[in-house]
């Protein structure tokens, strides 16, 4: 018999909801089968903790006396350039931003010790941040310079707003060239000396609800140690890729845009991350509860690493030059065994996403629900699904050949 989300919430309220992590659900379904598990389990929690690009925060610092309009001026937080083009005192800072005087990749490979991601972690940790801004001054906003410490507890709003997180599956990266390369998939040794991957696999949120039946716009989630919401599909959302029989996509597919009050988040779940030779990003902790409404959903949540596959992609030439196709397919069980095989060669594997932390997130979310501190939400709107035809497009190349004045 099918359940509804409001019935499950009633159970949470009365402390009777049966909540399992995706790992525990796999064990239960192994023992009792899907039919029985679908009846007895109300919620399955998922988790993921990996470097997630396209993360950022916006803050409103409050008006100074006299007033200043940062918009169209310049603004730096701990020397990291922030975007102030909204209005007077709203600032956006992206995880990948770097101080202007960072040497980048001039001394290759660049170390990228400090950037937007690290600043977000420090800000959430309650450290004072140095704000330096310049403006042009107006009659109503006469001030032209601001040098001031800001702290998360003093600003009006501090909101984490990540426009693309929580990838539903990701590539396994290798390097076919004869020299070491430094990528967002980590350091890749020459001649397929290693292979890296970045997904929690059987614990990863969107792999456990592959057709987005319960995860949608407005879904309440664990975000950065606090509570957040799904704001929209993430950028580059590509649900229409090829899928396995169990619904899981064979290559990177869906993504999520997530939002939440930064003031209640924790620095251990939002970590500044330095990828050698590549740049800075933010490692984000996300956990999503999946209501077990029927047997189909129960089945999806019980899919194991053995049943989730990804493509092996060469990052020395094929990825940078956008050459379609892949070198082969591997399951997460193979990736996690520590070794995969490609063209008869054994290649050691390394993960960039932390599985133990993903377990911790799924367990924390489970504890919140069991304690009646976290209720499930009905999606306000569905995410574009596998039959939406939506896929990430490449740039439409229209090179500007002639400089025309005025444009």
């Amino acid at each position, binding site marked *: 018999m099918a359940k509804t989300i409001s019935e499950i919430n009633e159970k949470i309220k009365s402390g009777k909801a049966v909540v399992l992590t995706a790992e525990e659900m796999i064990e239960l379904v192994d023992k009792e089968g899907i039919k029985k598990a679908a009846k007895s389990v109300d919620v399955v929690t998922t988790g993921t903790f990996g470097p997630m690009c396209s993360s950022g925060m916006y803050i409103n610092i409050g008006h100074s006396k006299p007033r200043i309009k940062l918009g169209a001026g310049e603004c730096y937080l701990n020397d990291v350039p922030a975007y102030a083009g909204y209005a007077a005192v709203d600032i956006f800072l992206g995880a990948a931003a770097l101080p202007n005087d960072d040497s980048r990749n001039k001394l290759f490979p660049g170390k990228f010790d400090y950037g937007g991601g690290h600043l977000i972690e420090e800000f959430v940790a309650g450290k004072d941040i140095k704000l330096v801004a310049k403006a042009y001054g107006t009659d109503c906003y006469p001030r032209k310079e601001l040098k001031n410490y800001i702290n998360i507890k003093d600003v009006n709003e501090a909101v984490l707003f990540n426009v693309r997180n929580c990838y539903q599956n990701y590539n396994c990266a290798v390097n076919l060239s004869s020299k070491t390369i430094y990528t967002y998939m980590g*350091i890749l040794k020459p001649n397929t000396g290693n*292979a890296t991957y970045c997904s929690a696999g059987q614990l990863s949120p969107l792999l456990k609800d592959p057709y987005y039946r319960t995860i949608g716009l407005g879904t309440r989630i664990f975000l950065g140690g606090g509570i957040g919401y799904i704001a929209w599909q993430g950028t580059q959302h590509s649900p229409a890729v090829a899928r396995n029989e169990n619904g899981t996509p064979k290559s990177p597919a869906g993504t999520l845009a997530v939002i939440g009050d930064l003031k209640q988040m924790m620095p251990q779940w939002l970590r500044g991350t330095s990828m050698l030779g590549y740049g800075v990003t933010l490692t984000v902790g996300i956990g999503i509860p999946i209501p077990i409404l029927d047997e189909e959903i129960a089945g999806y949540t019980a899919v194991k690493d053995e049943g989730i596959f990804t493509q092996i992609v060469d990052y020395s030439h094929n990825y940078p030059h956008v050459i379609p196709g892949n070198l082969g397919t591997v399951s997460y069980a193979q990736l996690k065994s520590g070794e995969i095989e490609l063209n008869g060669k054994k290649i050691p594997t390394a993960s*960039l996403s932390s599985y133990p932390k993903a377990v911790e997130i799924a367990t924390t979310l489970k504890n919140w629900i069991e304690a009646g501190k976290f209720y499930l939400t009905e999606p306000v709107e569905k995410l574009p699904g596998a039959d939406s035809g939506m896929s990430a497009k490449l740039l439409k190349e229209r090179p500007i050949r002639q400089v025309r004045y005025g444009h």
Partner: protein
Amino acid sequence: MVSKKIVLRFPPQVVDKPVIYKLAKDFDLEFNILKAIIIPDEEGLLVIELTGTQENFERGFKYLESFNITIQPLNKDVVRDETKCSHCGACVTICPVGAFSVDQKTRKIIFNDEKCIACDLCITSCPLRAMSIHF
């Protein structure tokens, strides 16, 4: 036979003495230099693996100490900050001597500092900068 990885610090006045040659010739200690930094007029630092009999080790160490060369076991020099490590595993295939391994049950990353040769590849390749080297 005993094998030890150690860190030697040379005071400036010893930098020009062929002490490692003496270790091999006079005390029959087989050596494998893992890292060497020599700054003239300041000091020298040598990370070295020595193999020999316990007796020769003792004699060799006495010889080194007679030049005020300090001796320290290597495994105290590369450390993991447990509050920073997320156990992702990015280090596992980077370490040339396999000092990092994955516990197949918990999927936590085990750091075996006995294997470490202080090459410092893990320091900058750790995305969360959990590894540090203290010479």
